[in-house]
């Protein structure tokens, strides 16, 4: 690039990074393919009205192939076309210091209470979503009793998606010269939004500053040997560079309280999680053991279940619930037979059960007693006179006797 475009009368914000790699894209113009490079892109904010010109970009391009003495081709120079922009004045009423774009403003004091002679900082922040942040200018009026030093600006310009904006922070050091309460008035910024063509205004809140202490004399006293009363320790000759900071004007007045780690539950709460884990572990282990034991000795488990059923029958007998008594007794015998024969017997008919027990080596007397009991209880469940307490008790006793008998069977030699 041998000639940058002229931008007289504009404030310019480059929109491309300073350090970047030129990457071409292909474009065909009138049948001729070109490599197109983006050299520069900027936003230009006009600073005055009238016809303003943005000059053309000048390029010097080495063409051809090879290098050094074997290079062919020549040098091509091109200049882009200039562009003229017609800049209009802001529509009336255009107040002084008007800003063009979109912006919000805020203001704050770093301290609301200060000693006379000490400085506070008034910070005014403008957040611009569109427009030239450097165009924002606030003037702080003179306030009697306050010495206002020259402001300091800090600008951050951003351009997300080529929309130029940013923030402007302006800081004033204000030194109260006399005690009292001071009002820092609201500062207004007139804004013209070109998108809507309308005027608006953004303003800061009014701020209050309290200064205490003695008035600062306007003339400077000649230096004396005696140190001034109330001088900072930091100002003493022998200890010149110790800074302690400023007094704090706000406090939350938090009170003494137990911290979390001092709470009585804090220590034990560390035991809860491992204890829970241990309990779960033990529970799972106990359950697994019980299941293993059950798998190892199903016969004993079956006998236990039969006894449980007999207990249910005994309770039902006391309650006079005859049907439940006989049902529980039958279930108790069936469960006991299941466990001894190692197969379910509940679905077998009486002859099938007789045959199975005979094959297992059970004596005929026992088989008869069992089958008789089953038949008697089946019929008793539906007969009207069977709910007599003595009869029900007799049924549970009979069931108990049969269970004992079943438990004593020696089936090892009887199986065929």
């Amino acid at each position, binding site marked *: 690039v041998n000639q940058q475009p002229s931008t007289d009368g504009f404030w310019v914000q480059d929109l491309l990074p300073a350090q970047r790699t030129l990457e071409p894209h292909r474009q065909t113009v009138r049948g001729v393919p070109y490599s197109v490079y983006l050299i520069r892109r900027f936003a230009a904010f006009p600073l005055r009205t009238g016809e303003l010109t943005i000059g053309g970009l000048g390029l010097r391009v080495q063409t051809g192939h090879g290098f050094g003495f074997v290079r062919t081709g020549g040098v091509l120079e091109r200049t882009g076309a200039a562009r003229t922009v017609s800049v209009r004045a802001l529509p009336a009423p255009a107040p002084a210091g008007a800003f063009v774009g979109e912006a919000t403003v805020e203001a704050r004091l770093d301290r609301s209470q200060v000693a006379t002679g000490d400085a506070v900082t008034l910070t005014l922040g403008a957040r611009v979503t569109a427009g030239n942040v450097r165009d924002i200018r606030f003037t702080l009026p003179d306030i009697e009793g306050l010495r206002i030093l020259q402001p300091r600006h800090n600008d951050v310009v951003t351009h997300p998606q080529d929309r130029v904006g940013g923030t402007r922070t302006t800081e004033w050091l204000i030194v109260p010269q006399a005690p009292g309460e001071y009002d820092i008035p609201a500062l207004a910024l007139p804004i013209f939004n070109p998108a809507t063509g309308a005027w608006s205004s953004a303003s800061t809140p009014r701020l209050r500053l309290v200064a205490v202490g003695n008035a600062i004399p306007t003339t400077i006293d000649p230096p004396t040997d005696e140190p001034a009363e109330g001088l900072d*320790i930091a100002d003493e000759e022998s200890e010149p560079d110790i*800074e302690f900071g400023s007094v704090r004007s706000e406090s*939350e*007045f*938090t009170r003494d309280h137990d911290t979390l780690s001092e709470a009585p539950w804090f220590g034990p709460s560390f035991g809860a*999680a491992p204890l829970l*884990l241990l309990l779960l572990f033990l529970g799972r282990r106990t359950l697994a053991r019980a299941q293993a034991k059950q798998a190892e000795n199903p016969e004993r488990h079956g006998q236990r279940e039969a006894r449980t059923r007999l207990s249910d029958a005994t309770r039902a007998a006391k309650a006079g619930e005859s049907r439940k008594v006989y049902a529980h007794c039958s279930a108790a015998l069936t469960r006991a037979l299941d466990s001894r024969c190692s197969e379910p017997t509940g679905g077998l008919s009486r002859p099938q059960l007789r045959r199975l027990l005979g094959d297992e080596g059970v004596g005929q007397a026992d088989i008869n007693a069992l089958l008789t009991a089953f038949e008697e209880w089946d019929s008793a469940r539906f007969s009207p006179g069977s709910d007599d307490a003595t009869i029900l008790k007799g049924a549970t006793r009979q069931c108990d006797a049969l269970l004992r008998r079943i438990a004593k069977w020696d089936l090892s030699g009887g199986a065929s």
Partner: protein
Amino acid sequence: MKRGLAAGALLSLACLSVPVPTLAVDRLDEIFARGNEAFLTGDYAAAIAEYEALVAAGVSDPDVYFNLGLSHARADELGRAVLAFERCLRHRPSDSEARTALRGAQTLLARRQADRDGEATMNTDTSILEASYRWVSLELLSITALSCWNLFFLLLLIVPYVRRESGRLTVSVGAVISGLLAAVMLLGVSVKHDFFLDGSPAVYVADSAPLLQGPDRRTSSAGQIAEGDRCRFLREEGDYAEVQSSSGVTGWTLRDRVEPIGR
């Protein structure tokens, strides 16, 4: 009867919904403002009295302690300034301004000692462990320790139920990390509670004096302790307190010359 109960309940609710009286808060505010005003006019003794009144009223706020420390520093009571800044930092370890002020007070004390004795040693800090956890508050350490601890066991609990190998690996790594974090945080809590040290942290607030070998002024000297020295408060007996100075010397001094940092 039911109506009576309902009316009682409503009355209780009404009482609960009445805003807490702001009188106490206003008064604290006023005392604080008076303290600030006294400070700004240079009446540091009055400012100290106002801030001390707040502390006596149960206020244990880092900003109050900071202003108190500032007032003591301006009143040239640097030992007490060190104590107040230490208390401020105990409540808000991240308060860099208070840390700078504390360092300033200690530097001034050291300079004075050097001017007087020809040399001075600043015993400002503490063990590596204390320095490591200096910027983290006890509250944050406690919450993080408890959370990581529970997370550790929760992850241990769910590891057996995760079917995919990659998932199990992730959960196991998470458990290890949370376990380590819990250990680090618990160590921090222990350090903040001075679990590994005897006594409690304190500051020697009076002029430099010898430490005695017993709780009696007639006993001989065991060593020297300087104003603003951070020491360990071990025990008290009568008017005396047994302390261990930052240089490791253990001895007795008058009780009112040593103030524990924790209240």
